[in-house]
């Protein structure tokens, strides 16, 4: 490493902030009679208490970009000096965490609440014309966001020989992990690789057990300055590096659909941290569908492009294994409460580093990569 590299790192977020509290409303298919704001407030309350703070100690708020910030602050009962919304689909949780870190590092706030949640009863009806309404809907896209991800999957099979049997391992290992997570919507419902392969198609090659289920729930964390972090009840979870890249809105607009923006974002995060893929002990990676975990692990550099299938065949990725992935079951087995689904990857990474993984605690818990 050159002197310039070291100096550049000292000017970054590296080691400047830490997660000191986490909260999660258990994810369920539907949580009756609760609004999105109410679920967010409940997750916030849990995280604030978990950090040993009072809500008056919170002076920053980062949440879902689609939420009304004033309403959110009102429900939670805070008057933050810094507040913003983040809209990056599945990457919103991880991005919001990075934005919170920047705000703290920039002196805009000392202690920031990051919170996201979903109420399916509460969701506005989508309207208006869009690229999708003009160019896709008349041809009958599949339920959820599966059309594009299935096309990535099909292309990955064509380019690299990846198999559906290999992708079934992704889902089965996460389901194994979810059996130690009472907050997971599929807790108590084990599913083997064979169960995954015999589940029905939503849209080939994606089967229902390779696809997320929309749910209700919420999640929150508290982040503060590193110099304050040691006085909190839990082992601080320091942010050592972060990176982002915004991709196309429509997968068919992407030049090479088997490579994701994680190729750039992970490289930037590793550069800031001074670590590389080989240093990571476990990973919490965004998983709306099996294929996305697979291609993003490749793009982050854990394996070469195209090698993820053999990796899953030869590596135990459960919480007991040599490289644990999505230790709480991820979204595939935990359910997807809107943006809180991806955000839960941040929460679970922090939980494991704090040593609070319970029955699913990983053995080596110092260095984790989280992706959204």
């Amino acid at each position, binding site marked *: 490493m050159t002197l310039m590299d070291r100096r550049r790192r000292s000017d970054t977020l590296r080691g400047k902030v830490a997660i000191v509290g986490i909260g999660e409303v258990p994810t369920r298919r539907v949580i009756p009679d609760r609004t999105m704001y109410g679920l967010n407030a409940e997750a916030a309350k849990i995280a604030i208490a978990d950090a040993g703070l009072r809500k008056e100690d919170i002076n920053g708020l980062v949440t879902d970009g689609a939420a009304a910030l004033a309403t959110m602050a009102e429900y939670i009962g805070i008057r933050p000096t810094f507040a913003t919304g983040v809209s990056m689909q599945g990457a919103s949780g991880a991005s919001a965490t990075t934005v919170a870190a920047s705000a703290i590092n920039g002196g805009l706030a000392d202690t920031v609440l990051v919170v996201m949640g979903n109420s399916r009863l509460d969701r506005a009806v989508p309207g208006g*014309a869009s690229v999708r309404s*003009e160019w896709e809907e008349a*041809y009958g896209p*599949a*339920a959820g966001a599966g059309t594009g991800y299935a*096309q*990535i999957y099909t292309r990955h099979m064509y380019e690299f020989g990846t198999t559906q049997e290999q992708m079934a391992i992704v889902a089965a290992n996460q389901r194994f992990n979810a059996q130690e997570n009472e907050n997971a919507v599929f807790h108590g419902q084990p599913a083997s690789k064979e169960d995954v392969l015999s589940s029905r*198609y*939503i849209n080939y090659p994606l089967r229902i057990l390779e696809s997320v289920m929309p749910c209700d729930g919420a999640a929150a964390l508290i982040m503060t300055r590193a110099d304050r972090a040691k006085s909190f009840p839990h082992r601080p979870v320091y942010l050592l590096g972060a990176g982002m890249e915004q991709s196309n809105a429509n997968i068919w607009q992407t030049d090479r659909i088997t490579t994701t923006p994680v190729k750039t974002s992970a490289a930037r995060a590793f550069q800031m941290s001074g670590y590389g893929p080989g240093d990571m002990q476990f990973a919490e990676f965004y998983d709306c569908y099996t294929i996305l975990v697979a291609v993003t692990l490749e793009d982050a550099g854990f394996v070469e492009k195209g090698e993820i299938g053999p990796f899953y065949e030869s590596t135990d990725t459960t919480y007991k294994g040599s490289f644990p992935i999505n230790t709480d079951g991820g979204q595939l087995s935990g359910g997807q409460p809107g943006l809180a689904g991806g955000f839960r990857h941040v929460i679970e990474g922090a939980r494991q580093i704090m040593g609070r993984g319970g029955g699913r605690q990983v053995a080596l818990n110092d260095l984790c990569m989280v992706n959204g």
Partner: protein
Amino acid sequence: MTTEYNKPLPRLVNEAVSRPFWDAAKRHELVMPRCLNCSNMFFYPREQCPNCYSDNTEWVPVSGKGRVYSYTVVYQPANRAFQEETPYIFAIVQLNEGPRIPTNLLECEIDGVELEMPVEVVFDDVTDDVTLVKFKPA
């Protein structure tokens, strides 16, 4: 028949931009926008060339031939109106001229699709007013 078509029709983002595409389809012609400044042919149509941002663009006829870039077979559609058609193929076709377009593959078994296989355009007059652009094996 027009009155029986119960599936969603294209809802245009901007009539001023993409109406020529749909009018051409109705005439059973496939056209693509091309930039007069940098010669980039692009899709979907938009106000400016996504390559050089020029708003000096034209519509040009294309061959209607291309290859399957990727596809999925839909069993559970987002819109229930498509349920009776399942399973059907939702593909991305890359035209020989370069642009990619979302579409359906017709006259093709669901287990008979191969990536990069050649296809050609089919115009599907789903109503008196609207023609969808689909493809079949060439």
